């Protein structure tokens, strides 16, 4: 039996509709979480069916106008299958975790409606093969992530965080629309694969620039990276999903798909430059942050930057390797931090949170090691692949090695500080089992993916894809990581911690520059202020213009008043004017004669 790829959306759409309906009817449904989970599982099953069958491209006719057909085209090539599989797998873990996490009965319908639409949008994105289906998925992703980030709208900071996210996303959406119409005008097609087959046009720089802006906003690259760390105000399963396999990965995925276009137009250097800046900013900020989730957010920014760097080096497979393995360790990090936050009454500062669940501790350690890139774990393969790609370019290689050490530092700072805290009795009561189950699934996935990466090495080398390098790479990587871990251990486990904390609270100039992207933030403010100043000027012009029209009206009234003097009801005056007019007329006729 043949399964059309679009069917993968059906269970999600159905469940979302149920959630919407029960939300409108104000039902406090207890079942909706299970319905949502069932829908995701069903979707994943269908996705597996699609993955099992051959690849192809399928156009769904939407409408046609002016001789142009607007299709919703989907494809099931290897890339699509990889992303579909990732979204489905992580999605199941996240929805199981949500059962425990989201225990407010009044918000269930809203949460699951938004989550289901979010998943649906990501699944559609995974299989989209033309700009129409891409744009539908792209906008739905942006909007649902806005709604999810602003989920607890009554909490402090949430509204600002959601606004930062949606404003950045809006820039991306508008740029995407611009890119789509420009591409269409240039190549007369919406289809990616037709587009990739066409000869490059020198004018392709315009749409590609807009496309890059869209990708950078979605994937939180410099200078649009700020929204991602603010977005940590949202529920943790959302963060886990958003950072691991959806939303922010969408931008990178699109770049992987359309990279040949950038190669043709010689625009890779932009990717490399932006990626490197982002990587440095992300790693530095992660080191100076104290919010348990924001450290991870900066780390995501760094990971995405690394992928962009890899793409800038035209190493698609390196980017793809990190793309896949990052999903598991980042999801695991977020899910475990959500668990410990919940257990510590939603505290956010790493210095005030303690961990005392053995499974969660182990997951955190495994994910941290994988993020740092220790040899047998999956993160290693992603980082090494990028390192190998960067080796011809010494500067980039050195920067990346430095970043390797930095990422070890920040993630083990995170881990050690959390572990160091005294084990308070975790008094918060919540249903632990579903959350632990979700964490366990992702932990298993992390380990399985490590083995898979390890055992696939030979197969991949036959395809001339090398993500393991030689023994030197393994040695360099391992030594750097162990040195990083040792340094972190010394700094954060021993006596120096108080001095370090004091220094973190009062950063020096270098710290200030790096912390929270001060420059970027002030650049945003300057742009906003310029627009506000122009708006103010135009606003006062509008008022003055309004006054001016009133003056025109006043003039008409004055003219009326002046003329009214002639109509004062005095018969004598009328006769005088009449006589004057008569005389004037007679004179006129005489002259004319």
């Amino acid at each position, binding site marked *: 039996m043949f399964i059309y790829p679009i069917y993968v959306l059906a269970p999600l759409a159905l469940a979302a509709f149920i959630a919407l309906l029960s939300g409108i009817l104000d039902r406090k449904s207890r079942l909706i979480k299970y319905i949502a989970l069932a829908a995701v599982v069903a979707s994943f099953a269908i996705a597996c069916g699609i993955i099992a069958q051959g690849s192809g491209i399928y156009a769904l006719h939407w409408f046609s*106008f002016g001789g142009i057909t607007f299709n919703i085209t989907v494809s099931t090539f290897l890339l699509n299958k990889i992303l579909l599989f990732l979204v489905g797998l992580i999605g199941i873990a996240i929805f199981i975790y949500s059962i425990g996490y989201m225990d407010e009965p009044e918000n269930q319908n809203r949460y699951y409606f938004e989550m289901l639409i979010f998943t649906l949008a990501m699944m559609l994105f995974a299989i989209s093969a033309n700009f129409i289906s891409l744009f*539908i998925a792209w906008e739905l992703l942006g909007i649902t992530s806005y709604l999810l980030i602003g989920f607890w709208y009554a909490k402090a900071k949430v509204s600002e965080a959601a606004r930062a996210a949606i404003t950045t996303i809006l820039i991306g959406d508008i740029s995407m629309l611009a890119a789509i119409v*420009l591409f269409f*005008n240039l190549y007369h097609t919406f289809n990616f694969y037709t587009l990739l087959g066409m000869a490059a046009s020198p004018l392709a720089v315009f749409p590609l620039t807009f496309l890059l802006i869209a990708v950078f906003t979605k994937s939180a690259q410099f200078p649009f990276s700020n929204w991602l760390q603010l977005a940590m105000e949202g529920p943790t399963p959302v963060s886990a999903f958003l950072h691991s396999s959806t939303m922010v990965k969408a931008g990178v995925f699109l770049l992987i798909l359309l990279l040949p276009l950038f190669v043709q137009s010689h625009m890779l250097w932009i990717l490399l430059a932006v990626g490197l800046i982002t990587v440095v900013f992300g790693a530095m900020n992660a080191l100076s942050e104290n919010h348990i989730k924001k450290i991870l957010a900066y780390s995501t920014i760094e990971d995405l930057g690394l992928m962009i760097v890899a793409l800038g080096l035209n190493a698609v497979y390196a980017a793809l390797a990190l793309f896949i393995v990052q999903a598991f360790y980042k999801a695991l990090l977020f899910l475990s931090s959500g668990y410990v936050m919940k257990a510590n009454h939603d505290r956010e500062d790493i210095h005030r949170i303690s961990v005392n669940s053995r499974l969660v501790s182990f997951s955190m350690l495994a994910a941290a090691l994988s993020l740092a890139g220790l040899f047998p774990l999956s993160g290693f393969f992603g980082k090494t692949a990028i390192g190998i790609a960067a080796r011809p370019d010494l500067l980039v290689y050195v920067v990346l090695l430095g970043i390797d050490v930095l990422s070890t530092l920040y993630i083990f700072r995170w881990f050690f500080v959390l572990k160091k805290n005294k084990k308070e009795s975790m008094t918060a009561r919540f249903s632990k089992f579903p959350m632990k189950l979700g964490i366990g699934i992702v932990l298993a996935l992390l380990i399985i993916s490590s083995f898979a990466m390890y055992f696939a090495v030979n197969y991949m080398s036959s395809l001339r894809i090398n993500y393991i390098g030689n023994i030197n790479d393994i040695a360099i990587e391992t030594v750097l990581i162990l040195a990083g871990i040792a340094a972190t251990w010394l700094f954060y486990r021993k006596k120096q911690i108080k001095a370090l904390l004091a220094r973190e609270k009062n950063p020096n100039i270098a710290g200030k520059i790096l912390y929270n992207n001060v420059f970027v933030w002030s650049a945003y403010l300057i742009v906003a202020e310029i627009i506000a100043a122009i708006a103010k000027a135009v606003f006062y012009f509008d008022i003055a213009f309004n006054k001016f029209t009133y003056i025109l009206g006043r003039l008409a009234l004055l003219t009326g008043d002046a003329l009214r003097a002639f109509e004062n009801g005095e018969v004598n005056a009328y006769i005088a004017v009449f006589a004057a007019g008569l005389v004037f007329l007679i004179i006129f006729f005489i002259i004319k004669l």
Partner: protein
Amino acid sequence: MIAGIYTLVQEIAKNSIAISLAVPAIAILLIAVTKEKFSRAIGLASTGIVLAISLFLLAYLYIGHGIAINASIPFISSLNINFEMGINPISFTLFMMSSIVLFTTSLAGNVHRTRHKATQFLIVLFQLASTGLFLSLNLFIFFIFWDIGVIAMFFFINSLGSESRKEAAMKFLIYEILASSLLLFGILMIYFYTPVHSFNINTIIANAYLIPAVEQTIIFALLFIAFIINMPVFPFHLWLPDAHTEAPTQGSMLLSGVLTKFGGFGVILLFEMLPISKTFGNYIAALAVISAFYSVLVLMRQDDIKRVIAYSTITEMAIVLFGISEFSNFGLYGGVYAMLSHGLLIAMLFLAAGSIEVIFNTRNIHILKGIVKNARIVAYSMLAGIFIMLGLPLSSAFIADLLIFIGAISAFGVAGLAPLLALLLVGAFLYFIISKSFMSTGRYTRAIGSIGIEQKLAFAVLLIFIFIFGTFPFIMLGIFKI
């Protein structure tokens, strides 16, 4: 049996114009003579019947019957003025939009739940005007219905509005009467300068090239100014925000939803009629871009939700004008689709703004806090409206944007993307309002009123139609047959 049904369908289609004019005319009389408690039912019946007819026509035209629905009655034979009405794709789209907006306006009624008789009377009067205007094939008839619409809207503001309604109504009337007089003057010039002396639009389209260039330019200037006063476009936009501030909710819905489309429809007619208008295409596009940016920048300093939405109307109508000025099928039909989308959308936004006023007794964004807590449905409708305004896929606005900007690139190159930046600014400010007044941190404005089921239903109807036209765009575009 089946043959009988088929004949019935044919008969209804043939007489659809007569029915959709006769129904509001009868309803006007009925509302005038019956008691107040029947007014709502009569208004709802009148708008509902016309909505049903327009849906029926939509199906009828989509299935493939060509557009040959015309009606002609001699009116003043000595001057060759006939009561000519007809349906073409563009007029039908706007007719469809206006009948949906009118139905929901009548359904929502007066959100303050008073003065039903005056409200419904004016809604039905306005229905007569808009139906007649969009379906007219004769400039004389067009003018008559134009003025009926203006008068109905004047009374909406003047007798149902808020505090300083008299001033706003007078301002509205002065601008619109200026537009009407220019319109009348232009129409008469067309009549006298075309060799055949006709008011019939099709005849004029066929013969307008015979008008000398200078006269064509004068006629163009007269009519264009008349229409952009109504649209409104900078520098003739000043009446709109004031009129909206003072107008009652249902008046605002009709004002931005339908009345501003009179101007848009007029511009389309003008461009079809006078061949010389093509030479002004670039200037008109520039004016539209200026208008879009101007209104966005003024919008960013407003405190009143209704004024914000009013200025966003100017932005959107500027984008419509931008589309029309491309002189291509994409731009033209994109503009028409944008008017369809914008009419439904803006009616929903004004209904939301009016509901906010009823619930919280203020519309000031600096006072309102946490609307979503106490007025859930209103807040989500508003949010959905904002998403749609910014081109949410599967909503009608996306189709409109796509068509307009595909056309814009081929007409103006990369510069054709300029209005997108204005749209971006609108979005940024609207999201600011959402975060400031709708979400907020722990403080909530107290609700002192509530809205009824009928307003909620009106939200639902508008949203459903927006998504129908966005998800199944082939229905409307199939009728265009492009």
